[in-house]
């Protein structure tokens, strides 16, 4: 069972994003003059080194126009959503009493690789559907929410910043880790509760898709070069320059989602089932990767991240009637057309009704064919989605990372093992399948082979991940099959990957005298500079306050709290050496001569050259 099986719940609404993005901008020596950047993701330090907090904050505000759209962000990201429907096996049901209840989620949006766009994740403590005392599913966190299958060609109308893209978000909740359903008289919740008792069901999966993201709360801004974007950015700059004020500027996405069953052997944080991969030039595919499953006498296709939006009304692109075909074993020729999906079944109304899931009824003979044949979806002569066939065995294998898409390590840590589940027609495969690992350097684009591993009896290939020497961010790609071609690049629509961030040990910082000056300059100043929202809670530049809140600070920054919503620093870049020095300062009596480091806004500096401004705009 999976979210493509029934029972399942649908939810729709919006998602609000409030990240600080200042650390997205690294140095760029190719600019004229060279761009100093704001953050060194390998060393975990703000740039340029030695920049004062006040100067850093001023530069961060000036960089709002063209790129740095939210220097006062908090990283908080939340749903504004409700349960919109249910399906217990008889199709969409909007009469179930759980429909209309709120879907609540509050998480912290953090990129494992600050410069990159493929490693976003949400740290959270609990997700809830419904309300206390009423219809309710309470889901305490076991795994982070991961972003996968970023589709960079989703929205032809709104191309501002990440507005062009859509993202699949997913996490799963084991049924024996605090998951709770209060069904009362809701047939949908009763069906879910009953299904959870099945031996094959590991828990619940929540998958959602965010799309059509807008900035400055202005849906009229649809390009990165329009004058209105600059006008709105300048208005934000004016607000940010109001002394002692807090001026967040959250972005918003539309979203659809599904709550369904998490089957044993399915990855927790990315889609399982069968993948029908996007075709065409990487990052420009006309249709995004879809997922499919033959279940209940039908083929259920997840188009949640697939069909583009083309106008201000968020209309779906008409692709004609889509033909769903079963292919020959090698995927080369059509064996049978299983059915067709006309536009009304994938238009916007349909998308909102069933969160992008399309059900294609099959007769029993078609089911038999569809279960084992490669699938292909197209329209006329256009082929949009193809299920990959692994040669020479012609098996329908694909890799999916089990639970750890983003891995954090400290320099000097022992290697950790990460599992890549190989799915065969959507189910966990067996032993002996070769899985290949490649490194990917996203600054140069280079891909290079690393090693291979064979699957174990659960169909999982295990790879040791070593901590880097010094700070670094590494990315690994995975393919399946001894003859698999080396990936040309990391295309999130077609590539399985993990990111590994190693924080430097900073042993020299750990060895410093725990004076206020050392603690501020080597530990606290970077967060004081990069996270002005902290001023709302604690003056990180004030030794008396920092010391007075020492107990809370230690609790929030403890390595054991890393997965929690309230962990500090939110961006997870506290090095072991920084932690050691901070704790030594907190544990010692406060020197009464310690003085606050003031962080008032400095006077405005000359604006950046236009070429730099325009170039940087593309990196937001």
């Amino acid at each position: 069972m999976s979210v493509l099986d029934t029972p399942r719940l649908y939810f729709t609404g919006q998602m609000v994003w409030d990240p600080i993005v200042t650390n997205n901008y690294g140095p760029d020596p190719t600019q004229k003059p060279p761009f100093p950047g704001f953050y060194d993701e390998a060393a975990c330090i703000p740039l340029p080194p030695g920049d004062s907090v006040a100067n850093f904050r001023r530069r961060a505000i000036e960089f709002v126009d063209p790129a740095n759209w939210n220097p006062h962000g908090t990283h908080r990201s939340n749903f504004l959503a409700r349960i919109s429907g249910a399906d217990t096996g008889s199709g969409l049901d909007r009469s179930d009493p759980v429909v209309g209840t709120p879907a609540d989620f509050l998480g912290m949006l953090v990129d494992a690789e600050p410069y990159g766009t493929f490693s976003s994740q949400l740290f959270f403590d609990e997700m809830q559907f419904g309300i206390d005392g009423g219809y309710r599913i309470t889901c305490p966190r076991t795994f982070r929410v991961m972003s996968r299958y970023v589709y960079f060609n989703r929205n032809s109308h709104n191309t501002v910043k990440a507005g062009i893209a859509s993202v699949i978000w997913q996490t799963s909740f084991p049924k024996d880790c605090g998951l709770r359903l209060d069904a009362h008289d809701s047939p949908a919740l009763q069906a879910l509760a009953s299904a959870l008792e099945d031996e094959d069901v590991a828990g619940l999966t929540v998958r959602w898709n965010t799309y059509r993201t807008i900035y400055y709360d202005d849906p009229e801004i649809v390009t990165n070069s329009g004058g209105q974007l600059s006008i709105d950015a300048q208005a934000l700059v004016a607000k940010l320059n109001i002394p002692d004020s807090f001026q967040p500027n959250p972005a918003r996405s539309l979203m659809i989602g599904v709550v369904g069953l998490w089957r044993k052997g399915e990855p927790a944080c990315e889609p399982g089932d069968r993948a029908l991969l996007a075709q065409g030039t990487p990052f420009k595919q006309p249709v995004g990767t879809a997922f499919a499953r033959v279940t209940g006498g039908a083929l259920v296709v997840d188009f949640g991240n697939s069909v583009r939006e083309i106008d201000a009304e968020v209309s779906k692109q008409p692709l004609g009637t889509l033909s769903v075909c079963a292919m020959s074993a090698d995927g080369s020729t059509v064996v049978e057309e299983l059915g067709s999906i006309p536009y009304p079944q994938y238009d916007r109304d349909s998308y909102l009704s069933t969160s992008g899931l399309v059900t294609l009824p099959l007769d029993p003979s078609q089911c038999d064919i569809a279960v084992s044949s490669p699938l292909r979806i197209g329209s006329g002569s256009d082929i949009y989605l193809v299920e990959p066939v692994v040669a020479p065995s012609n098996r329908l294998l694909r890799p999916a990372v089990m639970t750890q898409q983003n891995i954090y390590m400290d320099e000097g840590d022992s290697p950790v093992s990460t599992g890549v589940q190989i799915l065969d027609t959507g189910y966990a495969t067996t032993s002996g399948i070769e899985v290949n690992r490649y490194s990917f350097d996203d600054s140069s684009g280079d891909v290079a082979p690393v090693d291979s591993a064979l699957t174990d009896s659960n169909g999982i290939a295990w790879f040791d991940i070593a901590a880097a020497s010094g700070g670094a961010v590494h990315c690994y790609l995975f393919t399946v099959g001894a003859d698999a071609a080396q990936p040309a690049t990391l295309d999130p629509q077609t590539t399985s990957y993990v990111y590994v961030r190693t924080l430097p040990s900073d042993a020299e910082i750990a060895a410093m005298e725990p004076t206020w000056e050392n603690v501020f300059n080597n530990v606290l100043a970077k967060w004081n500079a990069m996270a002005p929202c902290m001023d709302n809670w604690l003056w990180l530049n004030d030794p008396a306050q920092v010391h007075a809140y020492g107990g809370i600070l230690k609790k929030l920054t403890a390595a054991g709290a890393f997965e929690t919503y309230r962990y500090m620093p939110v961006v997870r870049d506290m090095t072991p050496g920084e932690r050691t020095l901070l704790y030594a300062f907190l544990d010692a009596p406060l020197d009464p001569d310690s003085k606050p480091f003031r962080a008032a806004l400095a006077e405005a500096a000359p604006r950046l050259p236009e070429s730099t401004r325009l170039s940087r705009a593309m990196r937001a």
Partner: protein
Amino acid sequence: MIRLQATPPNNVDDAVAMLQAAAGIEFGTLPPYLYAKFSILPGTNAPASERLTDVINQEMIHLCLVCNIINALGGSPELKPPSYPCTLGDVGPPGGDPLMIRLLPFDPSAMAQGMAIEEPEEVPPFPMLKSMAQGGGAMTIGQYYALVDAFLATLPASAWTAGRNQISDAQFFPGQLFPVGNYSDAHEAISQIVSEGEGAKDDPLDFQNELAHYYRFGEIFHDKVLTKMAEDPGYRWGPNALGVDWSSAYPAIADPGQHDFSRDSAAAQAAQDSCNTAYSGMVDALQRAVNGETGQLGAAVRKMFELRMAAVAALQVPLADGKSVAGPSFVYTSGSGAC
């Protein structure tokens, strides 16, 4: 419940005056609710604290929505910080005393007061409303809003000015705060305010299927989760406990505004000064924000955080009796703006 004396509005100025009074109530509920929340010991009473936070946030939203309506009608919202204890305009039940609203620390009486403020009464159907509109008299907050709403429905489109000094959800309270530019928007705002405070008709849930304020206070007061049941009346208190620990609260005095701090330590006096400075700064910034000054809502929120930090500090300074502390008095001291 709060009962308000009102006569039917005859013109836009009357309606604005009624809305101004309503804004005063929304604003006036914040200090007592904040006082109770601030006085919870950190790290304790999470479900109660969460419910109070939700209520406080919604009261702030209600205040902004009422100000949006006033602005759309051409008025200029005025925030008038009350001195506690006060009635917030309550006239009391027939022959009875008005509800005296106090600053109470986190205890059952503070939650009972919250229930009393938010206590619902079935919103009358239109004929009854019409009768009331003819005669005027004392009414609940919900009825009061209904009276205003009925008048607003009669206004021509030309009475409304879209985009005038409106506060949207661009920065804060996403999805819950919206500009008012016509009667439809105003009606939606009033419906949201009434339903979130009192619940929908015959239902503890508001129009968004979430628990109304009265019942959130009730859950804390009873230390029971309001739970759906199959039989009438559809809900019951419990059986699950909410998890309230009344002892996990600072030993804060009630009504600190009436306390003579001159007998307390300099630290206690300084702590009160810090609270009042932050509160007054917040009021001033909010006053500017609801009258259309760009960026001032962000300044008000910043002051709100300063008030929270000042309150946390104040609640740790012993008073002269050596056993009690005081939270913020919510005394407006600026003299420069709101009043």
